[in-house]
């Protein structure tokens, strides 16, 4: 079973990974060479828009200098690397084989794209537990993926009472 776990810096996605690793993936039969699952940890960071909209009347777009772009990209990559290394640690602690992948772009599109490309059987992601209204305005990665993925999806939520409450009516 090939599994893709979508990770960002939120607590929910790490909880999702931990849950998946604990409950789903660490029960491989003893002598099995190819473990239950091959896990791909995917982190998508939003593209950096290299222009700045200054406020004030009649101002034009200001493009960030290459130095700024470069340092922001570097910071994003470093952040991505640290997120994924934390995720990888969670996997190796439970003897789950995992590999990491970093992409730039819109999270929901990239997740669906990679799921198709890698032909995964299951995508695991956390859910921020936004209410219906917030979800309509802010968009929901998990909602989009639920509808657009061609494979199975597991949306993991923080248990009630721990952190944010799950979706409201």
């Amino acid at each position: 079973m090939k599994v893709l776990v979508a990770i960002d810096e939120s607590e929910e996605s790490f909880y999702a990974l931990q849950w998946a690793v604990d409950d789903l993936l660490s029960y491989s039969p003893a002598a099995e060479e190819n473990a239950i699952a091959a896990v791909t940890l995917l982190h998508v960071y939003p593209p950096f828009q290299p222009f700045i909209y200054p406020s004030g009347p009649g101002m034009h777009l200001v493009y960030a200098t290459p130095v700024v772009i470069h340092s922001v990209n570097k910071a994003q990559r470093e952040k991505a690397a640290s997120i994924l290394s934390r995720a990888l640690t969670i996997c190796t602690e439970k003897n789950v084989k995992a590999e990491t992948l970093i992409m730039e772009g819109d999270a929901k599109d990239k997740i669906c794209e990679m799921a198709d490309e890698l032909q995964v059987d299951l995508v695991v992601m956390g859910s921020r537990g936004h209410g219906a209204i917030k979800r309509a305005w802010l968009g929901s990665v998990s909602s989009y993926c639920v509808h657009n993925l061609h494979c199975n999806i597991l949306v993991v939520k923080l248990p009630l009472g721990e952190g944010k409450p799950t979706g409201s009516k």
Partner: protein
Amino acid sequence: MEKTVVVVGVDDSERSFYALEWTLDHLFLTVLEKCPFKLVVVHAKPASTTAIRQDLKRMAAKVLEKAKGFCEAKLVNDAAFEVMEGNARYVPCEAVENHQASVLVVGSHGYGALKRTVLGSVSDYCAHHAHCSVMIVKKPKNKH
């Protein structure tokens, strides 16, 4: 050891049975000896007038028989089977509460965007409202 309760919602569609089968194959077959999961299969029977109640009852019984057959074929003998009356969206979420489940598995109708807007999506509702993790199993278009 406390078992993790997994609720699977089934109706009479092939997709939901595919979801049940997928769950059995991936969550239950992999660890026969010490299976950490307890399966609860739930069927939502729509609330009805007395006229069609008999028909619905019969259909519900058939659905659960079929589900039982699936489970036993995969050697899962301690699953629980339930019929709950109500809307297909609310029933799985309610079952999750009743059984304190950690996972809810539902199939997906695979409706397109338009149909989904008009008819609503059970799996979407469950994904957002169930108080536990939700797995949506989709039947692949070309089964390999």
